[in-house]
């Protein structure tokens, strides 16, 4: 209720509604025009049926839980390592000069090719999917965090040093609060990449998870079901993004706002 009221007050309802209607109408027109292969561009009715089929299927929720768990673990591991490494890279010009270009060069390599190696070390179950997600999100989080740390106002650092703050104090009281908002942006990006990594891994070798279901649906050419699954994934991603967005805004507002 409060969210809905907030939505209306902020004035975003109208633009979003207009954009939604436009997009849905465009899709329906495309689907019904007969210009494109109907099976792959199904009308909205078929999409809705597919979505309903997914939500009503008890088997889906078990698989969703599996993927959700893998994703959470992947984010925790890859995100933590990425932030830690990013803090180091951002704070130390020497280490950055030594290694950051290698990280940037390696970041765009297709991590899925590492999957056989990950299976070797982490097994054929959820472990390899978690590893895949973690490796995928490590690089964007690292690079975003490093950039965020470098963006910290040097004035703040000078003030801290004039108070003779120790390195760890500077880390916690200057770097972290100032870099938190852009860092959370990096985590947002990392989340997306981790999700894609986990799902792709599940399409490669698995017997459970949402990626596995997507692969099954496509193999049978059950396109409404496949789209239904993707829509659910996007909605889930939306929900998580809203949560991270809230956290980012509160962090950027500062400790006084938080206390209020």
């Amino acid at each position, binding site marked *: 209720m409060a969210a809905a009221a907030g939505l209306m007050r902020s004035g975003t309802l109208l633009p979003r509604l207009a954009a939604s209607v436009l997009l849905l109408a465009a899709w329906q027109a495309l689907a019904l025009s007969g210009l494109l292969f109907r099976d792959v561009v199904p009308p909205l009715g078929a999409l809705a049926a597919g979505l309903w089929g997914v939500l009503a299927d008890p088997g889906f929720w078990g698989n969703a839980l599996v993927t959700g768990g893998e994703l959470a673990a992947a984010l925790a591991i890859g995100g933590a390592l990425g932030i830690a490494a990013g803090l180091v890279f951002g704070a130390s010009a020497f280490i950055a000069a030594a290694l950051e270009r*290698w990280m940037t060069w390696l970041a765009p390599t*297709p991590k899925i*090719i590492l999957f056989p190696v990950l299976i070797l070390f982490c097994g054929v179950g959820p472990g390899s999917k978690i590893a895949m997600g973690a490796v995928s999100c490590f690089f964007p989080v690292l690079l975003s965090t490093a950039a965020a740390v470098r963006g910290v106002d040097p004035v703040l650092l000078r003030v801290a040093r004039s108070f003779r703050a120790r390195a760890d104090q500077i880390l916690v009281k200057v770097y972290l609060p100032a870099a938190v908002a*852009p860092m959370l*942006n990096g985590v947002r990006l990392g989340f997306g990449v981790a999700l894609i990594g986990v799902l792709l891994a599940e399409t490669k070798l698995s017997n459970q998870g949402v990626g596995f279901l997507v692969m099954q649906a496509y193999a049978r050419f059950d396109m409404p079901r496949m789209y239904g699954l993707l829509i659910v994934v*996007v909605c889930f991603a939306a929900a998580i993004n809203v949560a991270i967005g809230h956290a980012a805004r509160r962090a950027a507002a500062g400790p006084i706002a938080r206390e209020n």
Partner: protein
Amino acid sequence: MRQTAAPLLGIGLVVSLVLLLQWAIGVGLVDEYTVPRPSEIAAALPRLVTEEHVASRFMVTVGETFAAGALATLVGTALGAALYRWPLMRRSFEPWVAVLAAAPLVLAYPLFLVLFGRSSLTVVVIAFASALPPVVLQTVTGFAAVRPVLLAVGRSLGMGRAAEFRRILLPAALPSVFTGLRLALMFGLINVVGVEFLINLGGLGALINDLSERYDLPGTWAAIGVVVLVSVCFFATLDGGERWLRRRG
């Protein structure tokens, strides 16, 4: 002296890791039928050039990545600036963009195949669509982070919006824009190669698919090395461009 010490250390570290891997495979710590010895990977490179037309595939991948990355940067910066300029639009649609950044667009590749055909166009479109949201988000964040005092100074000097954009916002947000460009290239290349791999079309991604299906592991890893080379080329160019711009500004 300090200038060259760091990069040298970096190279040294990488070389040590490669040697460590060579040893680990040799003694059986790592399965040689899953990760080939670095020496074998290096030996496979000449074969790629002569037998697998790696040079022309390289150009195809570079071309697709450049197209996707450039488009994502141009459109993304423009959209980001627009969202920043009109706060209502930003409040309404920035969350949508964030969601798109997390959406597994790659998994909807059948849709793109149907819409754009079995050609490089599909590869570029999917890569563009995947790289666009991060650039938009980065641009908006960059503009929003410009210190208000700078904008206040601009206003007190009587600057109009256009001047404000050109003289304060853009220069102050330039590092963010360049980060956005990096992200565009990163996501662009990863998706270009990924989609080429998935639908077995065109450049290096298709080559990696082919070689791995043929169980030519040294070749597969060598081809991945060439992908890293593409990455190096783009980012070296970008770094050079950024340095040149800074000297001018």
